[in-house]
């Protein structure tokens, strides 16, 4: 009960309302942009909403596009809480997919076990790739942003080499398919959702979301991670091994990334394509984590907003003939507003409104809590 109450409290906070107003404002300005371009905003938004929740298939696909965003959001958030910036989720995703693909293609295991092994190996691949960043940081003092970006490309090209060398499907630009025993599709849900690609990754993602919150706030490792994140000096003083914590942080963060790749292989594509660039999901994760203020519930909401907008925006093209460039602009505007409630706060000078006393008292409250 108390948990539920504190959950509901989130909605009572000023910041949530500001976020909602911000999103609304973003929609409004997006509408103006569309009007200037000569498109119909109301029809466009209607089409977007229809695309998001219009039928079981689209609902399923919306959920499918939200899932990886939750994971990449978590990946980035873990590192943020540890005081670091993981811009290398992209590469960790690729490594995760390589791991899952290897197990899925080469090993012969009974159905459920096969998938589990593939998931574990994919997660570990991503985790180790993340830990490489941490190791370079602690042993060589290289800033993680630099190594992350370089390792993103390294991972991509490693994936090209690996696919070409071991499991290229003749006449295509992709690997061979994983075995059916490694698939994590949920057939009855897929049927339910009219063919949308729903897989067990969804359940695991939700568990990880809860696990993230628990790990951060209720375990001693989370305590150490947060301590290092807020003050390396104080953590060192307290006897916490800062380097070890950095390694652990990046391992966990990389694992989340690795799982994204794993799920895409085992649940969505069944193969790894030789892609010219990485997916971009890792970069979206940065925005999700920031927008979600690194909290589990925030990441869930932010990923839902992001995923729904991205998936739903395709409906704007179909239903209202809005071209891709304008759609991307409108989506960016909405996200920009959602991410900048602080800006709105300034615009409205909420602190000096007629509710001045209440707000400033509450503002002070939030400072001290």
């Amino acid at each position, binding site marked *: 009960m108390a948990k539920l109450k504190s959950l509901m409290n989130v909605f009572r906070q000023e910041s949530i309302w500001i976020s909602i107003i911000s999103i609304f404002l973003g929609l409004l300005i997006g509408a103006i942009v569309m009007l200037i371009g000569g498109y119909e905003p109301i029809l466009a938004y209607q089409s977007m909403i229809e695309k998001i929740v219009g039928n079981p298939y689209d609902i399923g696909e919306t959920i499918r596009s939200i899932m990886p965003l939750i994971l990449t959001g978590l990946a980035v958030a873990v590192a943020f809480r540890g005081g670091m910036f993981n811009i290398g989720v992209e590469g960790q995703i690729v490594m995760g997919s390589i791991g899952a693909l290897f197990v899925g293609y080469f090993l012969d295991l009974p159905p459920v076990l096969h998938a589990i092994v593939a998931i574990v190996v994919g997660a570990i691949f991503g985790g180790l790739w993340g830990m490489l960043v941490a190791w370079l940081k602690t042993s060589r003092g290289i800033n993680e942003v630099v190594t992350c970006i370089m390792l993103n490309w390294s991972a991509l090209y490693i994936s090209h080499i690996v696919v070409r060398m071991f499991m290229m499907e003749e006449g295509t630009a992709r690997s061979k398919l994983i075995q059916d025993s490694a698939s994590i599709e949920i057939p009855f849900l897929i049927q339910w959702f009219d063919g949308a690609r729903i897989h067990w990754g969804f359940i695991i993602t939700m568990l990880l979301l809860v696990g993230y919150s628990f790990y951060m706030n209720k375990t001693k490792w989370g305590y150490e991670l947060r*301590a290092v994140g807020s003050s390396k000096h*104080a953590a060192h003083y307290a006897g916490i091994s800062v380097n070890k914590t950095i390694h652990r942080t990046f391992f966990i963060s990389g694992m989340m990334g690795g799982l994204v790749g794993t799920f895409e292989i085992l649940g969505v594509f069944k193969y790894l394509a030789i892609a010219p660039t990485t997916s971009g999901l890792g970069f979206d994760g940065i925005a999700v984590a920031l927008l979600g203020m690194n909290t589990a519930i925030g990441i869930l909401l932010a990923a839902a907003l992001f995923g729904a907008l991205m998936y739903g925006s395709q409906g704007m093209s179909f239903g209202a003939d809005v071209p891709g460039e304008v759609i991307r602009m409108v989506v960016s505007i909405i996200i920009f507003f959602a991410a900048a409630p602080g800006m709105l706060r300034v615009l409205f000078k909420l602190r000096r409104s007629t509710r001045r006393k209440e707000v400033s008292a509450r503002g002070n409250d939030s400072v001290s809590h």
Partner: protein
Amino acid sequence: MTAQHDIVLELKGLTKRFPGIVANDSIDLQLRKGEILALLGENGAGKSTLMNMVFGLYQPDEGEIWINGQPVSMDTPSKAIELGIGMVHQHFKLVPPFTVTENIVLGMETKKGLAIDLKSSAQRIQELSDRYNLNIKPHAVVDTISVGMQQRVEIMKILYRGADILIFDEPTAVLTPQEITELLAILKGLAAEGKSIIIITHKLKEIMEIADRCTVIRRGKVIDTLEVATASPEALAERMVGRNVSLHVDKEAAQPGERLLEVKDLHVKDSSGQDMLRGVNFDIRAGEIVGIAGVDGNGQSELIEALTGMMKIESGSIRLEGKEMANLSPRTVSERGVGHIPQDRHKHGLVLDFTVSENSVLKSYYNSPMSKLGILQESNIRKEAERFIESYDIRTPGTEVLARSLSGGNQQKIIIAREIEANPKFLIAAQPTRGLDVGAISFVHKQLIAERDAGKAVLLVSFELDEILDVADRILVIFNGQIVGETTPSATNEQKLGLMMAGKLGGESSNG
């Protein structure tokens, strides 16, 4: 002055409530033209809240602010500045890469067409500087000037904006003794020029030296307003803390026992490879307080970090009860029974964005009863924090507020509680009273002495000679990475110590 005073600022029944606490309870206060009014109170008494209302940062829940006989509504700092009020905050608000002039004119630049006219501004700053003896170099870059000068730039900022009422929030907390003397002279000069000054402080010495009157606040209420000329420091201190405080430390003679800590030929280099400790030898017995006196930067920090395992040593040995503990991890050192009240409580002593509870278990969180199987035992942790709050009189709205939101004194009390309650054999206290008020200082000193009396070895590192002389049983003087002299409080005085600290006089038994 006669009874006929010009009242430039008057507060009438000012009340400010925060959730769970009345920060200011119907405060009345008058500031006369050309006087220096000291606002005295313990940490958390409500001084800063009050001044933030005067400066427009907070809105009062009740009461009025009158300026020059007119009621005003002070809703923003810019309004306050408009009405001639300026505030120098404890933490400076300067842009380091900008020049002094740029910092001062920031936000009210004189423009020549589109360009900012810095030249005439610099001229005006120079004039003001000369007039008030601020000795400011308008073209210096803020990054490169001393803390004292930065503070004078802050003063200049408000003078430049034409302030007549100047508020100083703990202005001497960050200054060296020499800078303090300079500042006090400047304040007197400003008052003589007709500026009215409020100075928030808890340093009695300074009040006695410069203030005309002193208003004492305790727990959000005005207790008394005294004419400083006729008041004694003891009277002020008593009103501030609400009971008799002795400004002198009472302690029995030490009864040193066995040798507990033994440091031999300790060499430490800093990260850039410079020798910071060059053969330090000393020992501490159970039941004694050894004070390390010295000017900052002579190796004190490195000594403490080496003793606590936070820094690797080059050579030498550190033995606790005969067992070597050089180059062990900080955690092992702490588990061997070394407590450490660090010099910088914000950087090391606390994770400011952790709650009071979380900070209370900063060194014990990983073991039972604070965590079991890796899971934090929140109720045990909260109980620990409550115990600290109770027995060390930590003023906080609760255990789950961020350490950042507490006053400096209360933050320090969390650290002291944590380190002492861990029951160490050897306690290192580095600058344990920096920035604390009279009541808190005496509390800390009493705790250190109680530890000594309980048979612990205590190492007190301080830049305040008063403190070393009052609290330590034995004094070691550190200079340039070596112990250059040893003495006792009874055998020395501030002058002699000062000379030793400058490396000019050996102690009665030098072992460096």
